């Protein structure tokens, strides 16, 4: 508990955590409120549309919370405070796990709160405009998938930070992975005529967790589509911890 408390204090006593978290919270809320208030014909707006709007706009939030967790470890290396942390707790694995747990809980909690607020705000506005919203198991799965995706991106960023130890490089890789690298890989796989290329791309596969049937061709893969990304994250974190236990601090 002492270690978790220490890591929580570290996370919440630096400004960048607040700045990124506020952006991660405000951006999707703004999108949902504006669209719900300004959409032309509410009769065509379904519950599935609302959930899609929330999950897709919150992918950026999940990435930003991933950046927060990346910085939670790379800042320690950048400022040398990791030496103070390891001197205060010589069992490095405990320190690194505590830091990861705090970042994970923080990220998933913020995602859950923002998602629920966005959902409540969007539903309220649309209901007041006489929209008829209905939700089914697909929409529920997408919302749960969003929380899981947020957790996985958080741990992906943390794992990259553990291995690379440099803020700029780790954040760049975290952001480029979904935005550029997997799209390039998808293009290459498509050219090579590989069937269902998304299956081989962890992030794009995990994105299917937050898709609803009405969105983008109706590909909803369920929560199991997040497994490849979860495996990648576990491997990266494992490698990161082993490296940090062996390397000089």
């Amino acid at each position: 508990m002492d270690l978790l408390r220490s890591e929580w204090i570290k996370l919440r006593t630096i400004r960048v955590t607040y700045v990124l978290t506020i952006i991660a919270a405000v951006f999707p809320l703004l999108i949902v409120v504006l669209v719900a208030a300004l959409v032309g014909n509410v009769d065509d707006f379904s519950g599935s549309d609302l959930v899609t709007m929330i999950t897709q706009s919150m992918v950026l939030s999940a990435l930003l919370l991933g950046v927060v967790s990346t910085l939670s470890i790379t800042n320690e290396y950048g400022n040398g405070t990791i030496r103070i942390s390891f001197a205060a707790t010589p069992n490095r694995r405990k320190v690194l796990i505590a830091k990861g747990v705090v970042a994970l809980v923080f990220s998933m909690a913020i995602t859950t709160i923002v998602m629920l607020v966005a959902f409540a705000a969007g539903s309220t506005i649309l209901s007041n405009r006489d929209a008829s919203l209905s939700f089914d198991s697909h929409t529920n799965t997408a919302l749960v998938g969003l929380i899981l995706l947020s957790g996985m991106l958080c741990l992906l960023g943390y794992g990259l930070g553990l291995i690379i130890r440099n803020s700029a490089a780790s954040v760049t890789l975290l952001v480029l992975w979904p935005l550029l690298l997997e799209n390039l890989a998808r293009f290459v796989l498509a050219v090579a005529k590989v069937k269902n290329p998304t299956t081989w791309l962890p992030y794009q596969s995990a994105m299917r967790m937050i898709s609803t049937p009405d969105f983008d061709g109706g590909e909803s893969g369920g929560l199991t589509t997040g497994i490849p990304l979860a495996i990648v994250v576990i491997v990266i974190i494992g490698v990161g911890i082993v490296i940090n236990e062996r390397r000089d601090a």
Partner: protein
Amino acid sequence: MIEIQGLTKRFGKTVAVDQLSFQVTPGRVTGFLGPNGSGKSTTMRCMLALDRPDAGAALFDGRPYQTIKRPLFEVGALLDAGYVHPGRTARNHLRTIASSNGIGLKRINEVLELVGLTEVAKRRVGGFSLGMRQRLGLASVLLGDPHTVILDEPANGLDPEGIRWMRDVLVHLASQGKTVLVSSHLLSEMALMADDLVLIGRGRLVETSSVETFVAKHARQWVRVQSPNVDSLRQPLIEFGAAITVVDDTTVEIMGVGAATIGELAARHGVVLHELAPQQGSLEDAFLEVTANSQEYRTHSPFAPPQVS
């Protein structure tokens, strides 16, 4: 008690610490000296399990550092005052360290008071001078009131008042029976503060002894003599095997003969003495003498004339 046993640390082909062994005893301030690049900081990092040694061990009361559950209560270490997040306040910086060992806010406020930083406890560390960061670093060392204290260059950036304060703190800690190991380049400070010395060069132990013994053994000793007819003493002194350096018309410095002998010679030859003062070189002189062959980067006098080939 700190025991270093055959500690060896390599960085690639470079041997930073080479079979280093020494002991640091409680109740005394032990100065850890060595030229730049001699391996002092690496040794301290190895002691705290921050760097992984290739061989050997560092033991605190017989135990390796990594086996200590709550180290802040047993070993307080300040390796670099710059190890801070500039955006954190001084109090929050201490909270991140203290909470990991279950130390509460009350003790944090106590150590802030102790190092004189209470008034700036809510200020971001990024705006602190190096001296203030050193004080903050010392506050983190004192959090658990440990019985062993390790400090790497703690006087860096401190003003004269701060240096004196740091010296008093360390001497006080030693007087309480704590084990204090401190490295510093400020040899004049070390001479005032340290009881014992561990001197290393190129990663190896050069010498370990008390400061007094070290200076007596390695620093130059001479006698300063002032007399209106100092020339009358010259010949008798040379016959006694003395080496004489003329300072001015009335003053000479004499090596190789003790003050008592010079006094007797002066009396025998009817020479009036205005000054007869035994002199001893400083810790700095002794240090430079001993480490002459261990300097990683040697410098030359800026006043030396250019050599003509």
